[in-house]
C-alpha cells in the first residue's frame, strides 16, 4: 500500500463524510476547543461524565479529513471508558502517530498509523484528542 493509500483509507474517508457523534452535547459536564493556528482548523469537544466514566462524548467543527475522522473515531473509542483509560489511549495514540512507538493501535484507530509518514499532519490527527484532554482537565479543576 502506498503512503497515500495508507493515509486516506476508506474508513477515514467515510468518517470524514459522515462524522459520528457530530453534535453539541446539551448537558455536558466538560467542554474544550481545539484550534490549529497553522491551518485554522477548529473543533469543540464535549463530554458528559458519570463519576469517572465518560458516558457520552461529541464534537463539532471544521477541518481536514484527517482531523475530522480522528475526532469522529475518538468519540467512538472513548465512549464508556474511564478518564484514566481515555488518558492511556491518548498517550498510546500520540506515540504511534508521531512514530515514537511501534505496535498496533486498538481497534479501528489503527488506520491512523499512516499519519506518521506525514509529520506535518500529526497535529491534524491529534487536534481533537488534545481538546478532549483539555476538557477532562478543565472538568477536574
Amino acid at each position, binding site marked *: 500500500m502506498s*503512503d497515500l493509500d495508507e*493515509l*486516506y483509507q476508506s474508513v477515514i*474517508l467515510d468518517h470524514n463524510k459522515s462524522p459520528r457523534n457530530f453534535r453539541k452535547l446539551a448537558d455536558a459536564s466538560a467542554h474544550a476547543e481545539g484550534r490549529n493556528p497553522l*491551518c485554522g482548523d477548529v473543533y469543540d469537544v464535549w463530554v458528559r461524565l458519570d463519576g469517572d466514566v465518560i458516558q457520552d462524548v461529541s464534537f463539532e467543527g471544521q477541518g*481536514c*479529513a484527517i482531523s475530522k475522522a480522528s475526532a469522529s473515531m475518538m468519540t467512538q473509542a472513548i465512549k464508556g471508558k474511564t478518564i484514566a483509560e481515555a488518558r492511556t489511549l491518548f498517550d498510546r495514540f500520540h506515540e504511534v502517530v508521531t512514530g515514537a512507538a511501534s505496535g498496533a493501535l486498538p481497534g479501528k484507530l489503527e488506520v491512523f498509523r499512516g499519519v506518521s509518514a506525514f509529520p506535518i499532519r500529526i497535529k491534524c490527527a491529534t487536534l481533537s484528542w488534545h481538546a478532549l484532554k483539555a476538557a477532562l482537565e478543565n472538568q477536574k479543576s
Partner: protein
Amino acid sequence: MTPLAAPPPRESRTGRSGPVWDVARVRADFPILQREIRGHPLVYLDSAATAQKPRQVIEAVSRYYETGNANVHRGVHALSQEATTEYERVRHLAARFFNAADPSEIIYTAGTTASLNLVAQSYGGSVLQPGDEILISEMEHHSNIIPWHLIAERTGAVIRSIPVMESGGLDLAELERRLGPRTRIVAVTHASNVMGAINPINAIAAMAHEVGAVVVVDGAQSAPHLRVDLQAIDCDFFACSGHKLYGPTGIGLLYGKRALLDAMPPWQGGGGMIREVQIDRSSYAAPPERFEAGTPPIAEVVGLGAALDYVTAWDWEALVGYEQELAAEATQALATVPGLRIMGEGADRVSVLSFTLEGVHPHDAGTVLDTLGIAVRAGHHCAQPLMRRFGVTATLRASFGAYSTEAEVGKLVDGLLQVRKVFG
C-alpha cells in the same frame, strides 16, 4: 536527470508574442530542481512562500564564508574592508534595481516583516496621535496588519479597513471615501500573497498624499514578479524580502524616502548606528546606518547581491510576459477540475493563485499533491481577514517563478484530478 520542459513557443496559445523566456536555461541554474520527492520529480509551486536559489547565490554565500568572512564597518584590515565594500555595493545594486533616488534610502533588515515593524514602530511611533487613522486593506498578510495593531495600541491610533471586491481588486472608491484628515498611514500590499492581485500603488499614493498620509507598501510578492520602479509608483515606504527574490533568507530591504527617514528615530539601538555615545545619552548616525544596529546579516547581503546581479541580467519583459501566460494557462486548466473555484479571478495578478476544491479540505489536497512530488501551499496564508472576506478558512495556493513550466501546470491539474478521485 529531471527532463526539462520545452521552451515556450514563440507564438503562444494566448496569442502573446514578444521576447521569449528561456525557461530551460534558467532551470539549469537551480540545483534543487533536480530533486525527487516521494519518487517523483519535484514540481515546486510554492515560490510565493520562498523562491529556490540559483547556483550563483549558493556559491556566492559559500565563497564569502570560505574566502571573505569579516565584520563590516569595523576593522581596518583587508578582509573587513572587502566585506564593507561588497556590503555597500549591494545597497547600490538594490537602489538601482528598484530605482530608489539614493542608496541611503535602502535599509537592510531581516525581511519584509522586520521592515514593516520598523516603519510601524519608528515612523508610526513618532507621528501617530490618539484618534489618528491607519488604513489597511483586507487583503494584507498578517505582517502588514499586526505591526499596525501593536503601534495603534501604544499610540491610541485607530485601524480602518480598505475593502476587497469580489473580483479580488481593492475597492478604490471606498478607499477614497475612507481617506480623511485623520488618515496618517495607508498600508497596502503591492501584490496579494493569496490571490496575486496587483494593487495600483501609484493611484493609491496620489489619493493618500492628497490628504497628507504616507503609503507603506508590502512588496514581498511584487518584487519577484514585477519590475518595481519605486520613484514611479511614488510610495513612501516599500518592504521586501531577499528570499522571495531568489536570494537567501534572513535578509530584506526597507526603502523609505530620505526626508522621512531623516526625521525618524532609531528602532533598535546598538553598534554601528551612532554618532556619539555618552554614558547617559547618545546621538545617532544618519540613515541608513541609523536603522542597522548590530552586526548585520553580511553573508545574506552577499547572497542577496548575487541574486540581484542574477535577476538584473534577466530580460524582465520576457519574464513578466512568460509568468502572465503561465498564470493565464493555469487559470484555464484549473477550471477543468470539477468543483474548483479560483479566488479573486477578476483582478490583474502576478503568477500566484488560490483556489478551493468543493468538499475537499486544502490540507488533504495538499497532502495528496505532495505524494506526487507537487509542492503547493495549503492554509490561510497568514491572511485571515481575506479568508473571512471570501467565506473560507483555507485555500490551496499555487505560485510560479522564473523556473516554472507549462508542463508543471499540467502536473498540478492531473494531481488535482487525482485528489478528486480520492475524495469523490
